[in-house]
Structure formats: structure tokens, C-alpha cells
């Protein structure tokens, strides 16, 4: 650590700088070489992001119809924005959207606050001990989503899971799959897997705060709590905005949790429970790819809008 700073401090004056006297052409080639490293990324981006968006957009402008008994060929006709008009008036789709939005409004702040508090607590520990906590808390995030949900389905199980007898011992009769608790159960899985990631991001930016500020704050008589609230939290604001935006995007697109919960509580979690479930259902059960594409675009627009508004509202410089 020390030696490298010393070396870096020395180098500008000591070594001759060959870059300065090369021609503009060579510099351009150098830049191109650097840029070439992004080629695989842009190829992937084009193939897996741009192309599907273009295909989705074009699909959403058409309508496919069968005829007779439905076994002959299907005809696809240009229908303009009909699918979008239908989507904007689809009560089930917007019902799903509001359902998830309501969940997001409750769950996301709770998860963010829990992540922030945990990161602040870890920051109070020494570096070595913090490392151990960080790894432990990150483990849930490393478990693939579907696996995590299957684990939790077992844990929640009223027949064989360990939680039901535990709650019964406390005199509580909790059915994690009941209509009233289903979102709590889903939110708990989400928190379990997201908090570790949030802690990592927030803790990372906590580490970058110059320690001298804390020293001077302490000299001024500030308590740890006061330092956390007045210095640390404002400093990690951008990280919090980032994790929140990621949470908003992830939550509005929630799919695998309710999909697997559907078999546990099918009377609550219906086929159109969340927007993404409805899109999936339209595409692969109903077989209406055109309408599914239009709904996907509407969902993307809503997610984009909500994220942008949130970003705009929160990412102002502290006054």
C-alpha cells in the first residue's frame, strides 16, 4: 500500500513519457485497441438486448388470427397500436401492476433500511471482523433464485417445515401461504437474498469516506449515532439510490417467486398475479405473442418511468 503510493508519486517527474511524442494516428490506434475490448460486450448487447427489443416492438404491432376450427394456418395482420390500446385498458394487467406496486412500496424501503442499518453496523466493526460478516450475509445472494424459493417453500411448509411448529410453540398459528401472509412470505425471501447485496454496495461506499472526517466529528463531540446519521448516510446516498432503483426494477418484474408460490396458494396467486406472470401466460399458455409483446413494452415503460422519477427525486445534491 505504502510503497505503491510512493512509486506513483515519483513516476511523473522521474520517467520519460513516451506517449506525448507519438502521432495522432498512433493514439487513435491505441484508442481503437482499447475500444476493441468492448466488442464482445456490444455483440452480446446487440444480440440479446437490441434485437429482442426490435423483434418485440415489431411483434406488438401485429395481430394473429386463426380461422375455422383453428387448425389451418394463422394469418398475421398489421394492427397498429391496437394491442397497446387493449393493454392500457386491461383490468387484469393493471390489477397485477397495482398489486406489485403496493408490495414494492412496502417491501423496498424496509429492505433498503435493513441493508443500510446492517452496513452501518458492520462499518463500526474492525475490517477483519467486517469481512467475515460480509461473506456470511452475501451467501443468500449467491444462491440462485429458484433454488432459494424451493428452500423457502420447504421452510414455510405447514406440514413438514420447521417454522410452523416453532410459531405454534409461541402460540401463533401462521400459515405462510394464506392470502394475508403470502406477500410477507415472498417479501421475506426477497429481503433474504437482496440484503447481502445491498450491504456490500453500501459498505463499499462507506469505506470510501475519508476517515479524517470522523476524527474531526469526534473532536467536535459527535456520537457514533450522530456520525452515522449526519455524515455516513449522506455520503452513501448515491449507493442507496442505486440499490433502490435496482430493487424497483427487480420487484416490478417479479416472476419466479409468485410462479412457484402459485402451487402452494393457487386460490391467491392466480395466473395473472404479477405483470410478468401475465405476460408469460399470454405468450406461452394463451399463445398470443403479439399481445404479450405489447404488455412487455408497457411494463418496460412503466418500470423505466418509475425508476426515472425516483432517480430524479432522490439524486439531487444535498442542500
Amino acid at each position, binding site marked *: 500500500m505504502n510503497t505503491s503510493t510512493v512509486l506513483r508519486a515519483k513516476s511523473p517527474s522521474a520517467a520519460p513519457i513516451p506517449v506525448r511524442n507519438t502521432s495522432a494516428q*498512433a493514439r487513435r*490506434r*491505441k484508442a*481503437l*485497441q482499447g475500444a*476493441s*475490448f468492448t*466488442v*464482445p460486450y456490444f*455483440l452480446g448487447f446487440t*444480440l440479446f438486448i437490441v434485437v429482442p427489443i426490435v423483434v418485440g416492438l415489431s411483434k406488438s404491432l401485429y395481430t394473429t*388470427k*386463426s*380461422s*375455422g*376450427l*383453428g*387448425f389451418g*394456418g*394463422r394469418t398475421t395482420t398489421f394492427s397498429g397500436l391496437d394491442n397497446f390500446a387493449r393493454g392500457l385498458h386491461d383490468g387484469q394487467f393493471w390489477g397485477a401492476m397495482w398489486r406489485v406496486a403496493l408490495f414494492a412500496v412496502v417491501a423496498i424501503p424496509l429492505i433498503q433500511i435493513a441493508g443500510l442499518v446492517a452496513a452501518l453496523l458492520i462499518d463500526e466493526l474492525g475490517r477483519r471482523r467486517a469481512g467475515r460478516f460480509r461473506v456470511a450475509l452475501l451467501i443468500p445472494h449467491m444462491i440462485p433464485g429458484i433454488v432459494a424459493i424451493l428452500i423457502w*417453500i*420447504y421452510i414455510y*411448509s*405447514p*406440514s*413438514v*417445515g420447521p417454522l410452523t411448529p416453532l410459531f405454534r410453540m409461541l402460540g401463533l398459528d401462521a400459515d405462510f401461504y394464506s392470502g394475508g401472509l403470502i406477500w410477507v412470505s415472498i417479501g421475506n425471501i426477497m429481503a433474504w437474498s437482496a440484503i447481502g447485496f445491498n450491504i456490500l454496495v453500501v459498505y463499499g461506499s462507506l469505506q470510501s469516506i475519508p476517515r479524517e472526517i470522523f476524527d474531526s466529528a469526534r473532536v467536535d463531540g459527535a456520537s457514533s449515532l450522530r456520525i452515522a446519521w449526519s455524515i455516513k448516510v449522506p455520503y452513501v446516498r448515491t449507493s442507496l439510490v442505486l440499490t433502490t432503483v435496482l430493487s424497483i426494477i427487480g420487484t416490478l418484474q417479479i416472476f419466479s417467486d409468485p410462479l*412457484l408460490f*402459485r*402451487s*402452494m*396458494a*393457487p*386460490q391467491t396467486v*392466480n*395466473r395473472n398475479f404479477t405483470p410478468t406472470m401475465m405476460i408469460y*401466460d399470454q405468450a*406461452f*399458455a*394463451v*399463445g398470443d405473442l403479439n399481445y404479450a409483446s405489447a404488455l412487455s413494452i408497457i411494463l418496460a415503460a412503466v418500470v423505466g418511468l418509475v425508476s426515472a422519477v425516483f432517480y430524479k427525486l432522490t439524486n439531487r445534491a444535498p442542500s
Partner: protein
Amino acid sequence: MNGRGGRWLAGALTVGIAISTAACGGGDDSRSSGPVEVEYWAWAPNTDPVVAKFNATHTTIKIKFVKQADNPTTATGLRNAVAAGQNVPCLVQNFGEVPSLLAEGLLADLTGQLTPYVGTKGFTATALKGVTVDGKYYGVPTGASPNFMMINRKVYDQYGIAIPKTWDDVIAAGLELKPHGVQVMNLAGEDPSTLVSLVQQAGGTWYSVEGNAWKVGFLSPESLKAAAVVQKLVDDGIVANQTYTDRPALIAYFDQGRMVSLPTSTWQLANYETNFKKSIGDWEPIDLPQYADASTFVTPAHGGALLVPKGCKHLAEATEAGVWLNTAKEAIDASYLPATGAYAWPGAIADPSPWVESVVPKNLFGSRRPEAVPVILKATKAGVDPWLVGPNYTGVFKELQDQWALAVTKKITFQQLLEHMQTYTVDDLKAKGINVASS
């Protein structure tokens, strides 16, 4: 340094180009001479030895088996292959209902290829019905596995309850068991198959063809008759609602003796044999309960298909291979699975008797094991298939699942379920531009 950088740049570009050309390419491996290769997609566990046997006994056709992960992956893979029009397999394990898959444009018309085998290979009439749409064949018949019931005889005896012969008996047994905290049956909230089976057993179907239009019959007398049975089971509070997704919980529940009658089939027995701990040996195979007014003994036997997708280049060879896989003695013999000691159920042929013994597990039925073979053979003989589904059944089934979940939790009645499904199905067909007969 610069030279090396240049090579890197070239390398990166080459890799990029190679990736994009590979994505566009995709070879056609049909050869002009030698045996015809038929590609076969399946996820069933005992497919390898059957394919090996086929390849060892055939010279002009070879099956190339491509193991699939599961049902949904196969469905997605096939949809993509057919849409792309290349690398289309010629045989695919069934993942849906033939009419729905046909409406999706996934299936080839096999009428010409299959007809020569119809009289000669012993396909049962019910098995053939499963691949027939509007008088044409789409797929190789695989038939159905026999439906019967198994009951926890120890619990039945403990409370002195007679073995049910009719659905009314099942309900009566349920009422007697209820005070003891025992449920007579399980109706999983996500699985409306009990209702579907009951409609089939009553001789009904939700779709039928009338001229050039579909007649939708969710409110037919057969359908209402079936709904009345499940309504009674639910209203009396004598059934459980354990899900199939939480497998350990389900098996534990069955095993504890708290749920005592299970409509079942041959392919499920090995699973119960392996997982039941407490109740192993207590179960008894019995005939599927009938409607009280039934004149003949029937079991629902809706047949499935080995799919031959549209775009397969070797329809005749695919059909020949498919017929062999489902009817040849050698094929069924080769399907032996050592883990369960059972052969794949030969659902397409009239006489499965040489293989029946193998599907009956050693311990599940205890001293009543000898009763299993006659029960299974009786169920096979009594199989009927009045069932036909329409082109939109995949989506309709999803809606049915939602409605079923509401009905088994008493949020709606089964009458309301059927009324909703009638409206939903008619509206959905019409929205797709498909003709619906006014009823």
C-alpha cells in the same frame, strides 16, 4: 507492443464474427446415402436402452436420441425449432394435447404414414383417438396408463368402513372418517385433473366439433354430474388440499394415514413404494369408484401421442420408428428400469399383460399385492376416451386451474366454475377468430 495490440484487435473481431456466423448457421445433417437418421427428443428416464435396441435391430433407420431436461424445456425447444424451420426433430415426447399443439402449427399430418399400421400393430381404439383430430392422425399413439384407486386399508378397517365402489361411497366414507381427523381424498389446489377425469368417466367432453365449428360444453349433463361429486367432497370438508409442489410434505401426509384414498395409475406406484415409510404394506389397489347410476364399468383413458413435428424431413421413417417404440415387444422389454424394476407402461396396445406384474411394487400393497394385476388389467380393458380438447386448451387449462383453486377453497361453487369456463372458452375462441357453434 503495437503489433501485439493489432493481433488482439483482429482476434477480438474474428471471435465476434465467428459467434455471429455460428448463430446464423446451423447445419443440415441429412445425408444422401446410408440409414436415415431420426432425431428423438425425450426426457423420460428409460429412453436410452430402448433407442439402443432400435438401432441394434434396424439398418435403414437410426434414432439419434437427444436427452431433454424436462417438459417445459422440450416445449420451448420444439417451438423454436419449428419456428426457425431448421434442426426440427422427428420424434418428440408429448408435452401437451394434440389439438392444441396442432393449432400452434407444431405437428405434421401423419394420416398417410400411420394408416398402414392402424390395422396391423394392435393400437387400441382409445389410443388412436388420442391422435385423431377431424378424422386425421397427428402423432403416433402412446395410449393412456390405467386408472384405479389405492386405499389405506388399515385405516379403513380400523374405523370399520366398507371399501368404496361408487363416488357416493367415497363421500359416505369421508363423512365417517371426518370425526377421526382423516381425509378421504386429496384435491390439490393447482390440479383440476380430478374434475377432468370425472367428466371423462361420465362420458363427457368439454369440446366437440360440429361442422366447421367448436361446440363448448362445460355445462353439459356429464360435466354437471362430475361437478356435483367434487362439490360434495368440498362442501362436506372431507378432502385435503395438499400441493404436489411440496413433494416431501405431500408424501409425508399420505404416509401418515390422514388421507386414505388416492386415484392413481401405474407410473406413480414406484414413487409411493420408495417414499412411504409408515404406511407401506397397508395399501390396497381397488377398482376406480363409479357413478352410482353407471351401467358399465369404465375408467377414463385419454390417450397421448408421440409427437412428429411439422418440418420433420422423414415422416415415414419417423412413423415407423415411433410405431416400433410404442408397440414392439422388444421396445417394451428394453424399457426396463432397474431402479424401479418396472417396464414403461405399454399404453397403446390392447394387451399389456406380459408387463403388468413388473409395475406392481413389492411392498406397497403388502399381502394384497396379488390383487393389483387383476385391478390394473380390468382398468385397462374398461378404458374409454370421450375426451377432445380444442385448439385453445393450454390457456383454458390455466384458467381452469385458477377457478379450481377458488372452488376447492369454497370461494366459488363448481357450478360457477363451469359457467365461467364456458364463457371464458367461447370468448377466447372467438377472439382468436375460431368458429364457435351456438349452443
